[in-house]
């Protein structure tokens, strides 16, 4: 077999699966993911539908990562959790794997953690968002700082790989508020932290209630504060919004950022198989009734390269030039004419990598657009 074909196979190998559980006991005001209120019967049906989808599409590849996200997967009853894991048993894992399960901190109990552990889960992701109880109403989310601390610590007794999410740039948030949140999160001493600036998306409660995002200058200041503070506390900044203790970066998210192939199972999930990107229906009822893919696109070579660049530049190390060459059989400098961007200090380059300088991460879109615009292949 030609090396090119081998590369094609290697490139298209499925390594990951995302499973969406669209149920929540309470709907947070900022959430625009696919979700509905928890209903035990509906959840049961949903899990059966999930099983059907897996049986139809999954080709028994041993996977490197599984990510169960939501909604709130931890909102499922013990019975439904057992049903779910019975289904997920069908997914094979490699010897070394990462299996993440998203939890609402209020749901965390010894019983739950034991059940997860028994079912191959080895990483937890907990959406804390903020410790600041003044946001309880605005976010439509219970904010009990003591319980947060207690339950995260409980998680750490069972799992050594725990992520917590932090949202910043909340309505009216001040630098002091952010500092308090950061201090608390650092005290938790978890291995992974994800931080996101609040986006007020259309169709969210926040949008309907006419809340406005903080201005760009304030957001930017907060972002760089977070980077500085977490780095000085032993975290590695490895992706625009993600930080980890050395060796604990998220393999599943890296799969996205390396443009690897992955299954997306469940309502509202997205997947990437061979050269097809697809989205499942966002309607939980339709999904239960057997509806699956509602959007599908074939990724041509140019789009594949553009996606690769767009996603890779989210990583602090940016594009690995050797991987690029191995994947696409071309040197990146033969595909993009980015010299001016390097001259203008919008990109930085060393022997192995092409990346966005740390002080420009918060305007990375501008730089990515320019780089994509410098595409010179087939011109």
């Amino acid at each position, binding site marked *: 077999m030609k090396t090119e074909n081998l590369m094609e196979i290697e490139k298209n190998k499925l390594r990951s699966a*995302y499973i*969406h559980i669209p149920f929540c006991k309470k709907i947070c005001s900022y959430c625009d*993911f696919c979700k509905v209120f928890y209903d035990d019967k509906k959840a049961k049906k949903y899990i059966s539908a999930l099983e059907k989808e897996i049986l139809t599409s999954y080709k028994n590849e041993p996977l490197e990562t599984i990510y169960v*996200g939501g909604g709130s997967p931890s909102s499922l009853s013990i019975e439904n959790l057992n049903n779910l894991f019975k289904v997920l048993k069908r997914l094979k894992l490699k010897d070394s794997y990462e299996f993440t399960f998203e939890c609402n901190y209020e749901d965390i109990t010894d019983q739950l953690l034991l059940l997860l552990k028994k079912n191959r889960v080895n990483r937890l992701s907990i959406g804390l968002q903020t410790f600041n109880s003044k946001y309880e109403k605005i976010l439509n989310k219970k904010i009990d700082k003591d319980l947060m601390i207690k339950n995260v610590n409980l998680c750490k007794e069972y799992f050594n790989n725990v992520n917590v999410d932090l949202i910043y740039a909340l309505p009216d948030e001040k630098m002091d508020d952010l500092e308090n949140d950061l201090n608390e999160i650092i005290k938790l001493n978890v291995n992974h932290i*994800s931080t*996101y*600036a609040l*986006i007020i998306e259309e169709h969210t409660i926040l949008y309907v209630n006419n809340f406005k995002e903080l201005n*760009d*200058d304030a*957001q*930017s200041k907060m*972002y760089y504060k977070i980077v500085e503070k977490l780095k000085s506390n032993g975290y590695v900044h490895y992706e*625009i*919004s993600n930080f980890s203790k050395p060796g604990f970066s998220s393999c599943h*998210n890296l799969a*996205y950022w390396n443009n690897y192939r*992955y299954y*997306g199972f469940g309502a509202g*999930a*997205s*997947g*990437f198989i061979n050269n097809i*990107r697809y*989205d499942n229906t966002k309607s939980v009822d339709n999904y239960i009734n057997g509806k699956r893919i509602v*959007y599908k*696109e074939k990724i041509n070579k140019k*789009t594949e390269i*553009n*996606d690769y660049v*767009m*996603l890779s530049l*989210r990583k602090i190390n940016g594009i690995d030039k050797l991987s690029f060459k191995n994947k696409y059989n071309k040197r990146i400098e033969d595909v993009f004419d980015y010299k001016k961007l390097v001259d*203008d200090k*919008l990109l930085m380059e060393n022997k192995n990598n092409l990346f966005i300088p740390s002080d*420009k*991460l*918060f*305007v*990375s*879109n*501008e*730089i*990515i*657009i320019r780089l*994509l*615009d410098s595409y010179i292949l087939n011109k």
Partner: protein
Amino acid sequence: MEKENIRNFSIIAHIDHGKSTLADRIMEKTGAVTKRELKDQLLDSMDLERERGITIKLNSVSMVYKKDNEQYLLNLIDTPGHVDFSYEVSRSLAACEGAVLVVDASQGIEAQTIANLYLALENNLTIIPIINKIDLPNANVAKVKKEIMDTFGFMEDEIILTSAKTGVGIDELLDAIINKIPSPKGSDTKKLQALIFDSVYESYRGAIIWLRVVNGKVSVGDKIKMLSTNAEYEVVELGIHDPKERKVKTLSAGEVGYLCASIKSVSDIKVGDTITLSKDSATLLSGYKPMKPMVFCGLYPTESNKYNLLREALEKLKLNDASLSFEPETSTALGFGFRCGFLGMLHMDVIEERIEREFGIDIVATSPSVVYEVIKTNNEKILVDNPSNMPSNEKIKEIKEPYIKTNIIVPSNYIGQVMELCQEKRGTYINMDYINETRVNIHYEMPLSEVVYDFFDKLKSFTKGYASFDYEVIGYKASNLVKMDILINGEIVDALSVITHKDFAYQRGKIVTENLKKLIPRQLFEVPIQAVIGTKVIARSDIKAMKKNVLAKCYGGDVTRKRKLLEKQKEGKKRMKRVGNVDVPQEAFLSVLKVDD
């Protein structure tokens, strides 16, 4: 037809006073068209004219009218109703012996009523004043009658009352046309002198000349000569419009019609020129002036690959519009485009709109400029129609700019506001005529550049829309002018340079830099915007560096959504022009025009 039974006339009026409807009614009355054939405002043949309710290109129509067993040939020569085209109006009027002066029964005399009447009087025409729209509920016939008598000196019994809409008074008007307007004077036996008052282009026959034979005869097959250019042609076709085209063998003194002579473009034809026979030349009729564009601006395609399409569009428009001029121009900011010359602002607007509408090309127009006369320190005189071509200040001895004299008719309670505005626009007061106790005609001398800039908009807002405005160009005067450049991120943006009076430069610079700051999105670095005269910075504002443009959230594996967000941003950028390192939206180039202070 006997010369004694020919009447050549025009209808002159302020915009919207009902000129075109009146023409329709006359055609209907004379049987030139039936009611069924009569589209509203038959003479306005371009869609855009009909939409704007104005006549841009003139036409003429010949009608046979029977009265007392006698047949008369009425030639109605239409005129464009806008100050931009006043030279063309004056040539159309020169082809007539009389004019019907239309005044709206509710509006009274307006600025163009006066301007057009003076043009008619300069051409020694017999005037028939009429008050139109007398059927309107707010018609005030007595008041308007008094205005016409007081302002122009007509007698009460000379004024005819009409409603072009209902047909009232049209018979009386036709009688007056026959009885009062003299028949043409010329002689068939003299040497040929035919006045060109219009031309239109057709792809099959080429340029078609509209003419009035003043003396002599012209026949198919004759060799003719244009007296201003000495160009010679052979007459291929002659005819009249009644209003359908009807070919004739000969046109004689006093007659109005069209002439085809295999002329490739209307640019070869000068309105106001005289046609004579090659073998037996006469002299040029008086009143000929070469047409000169008064206002210039750069037109650039929004998408640079449309440059050739834009050139084709301009070429096609020019085929039928000799007063349009254009030549290629390059701007560092806007790329390749054309410097275009127009008779005035309306002419410019119409051409721009036609390019976008009829040819489907999006264009960016730079701020319009008048033509400056510059005397350099070495006493060389140059004409500058593009601010970016203005020599540097130390090389300039003197700059002269075109001046106009205004007719501004307003209710007298707005006199104060109008005078304040004119003063602000560097106007010099001349005098004021009372039309009646409540309305005045205010005369100022003012630089044309102020009119081109924003005078008309301001006049409307200062007078709540009650003012009517018209002007005539009176010549060049020296002014204390300077060229103001705009620098974006240290680079001169040629398309934004303007010439302004020194006293206004500071204020204008401040407004322009502030406007640009609002219109140009934040960039990856701080961008200073400066207004400079020579090397001196007179105004500055800074666009702060962009602080955020990132997809902070992961959106699960939904890469498509991420890509689409980026593509949307990319599209937005495409609509901007890159100046140095800065993305400038198209609107920014117009911001030098919009000055709301």
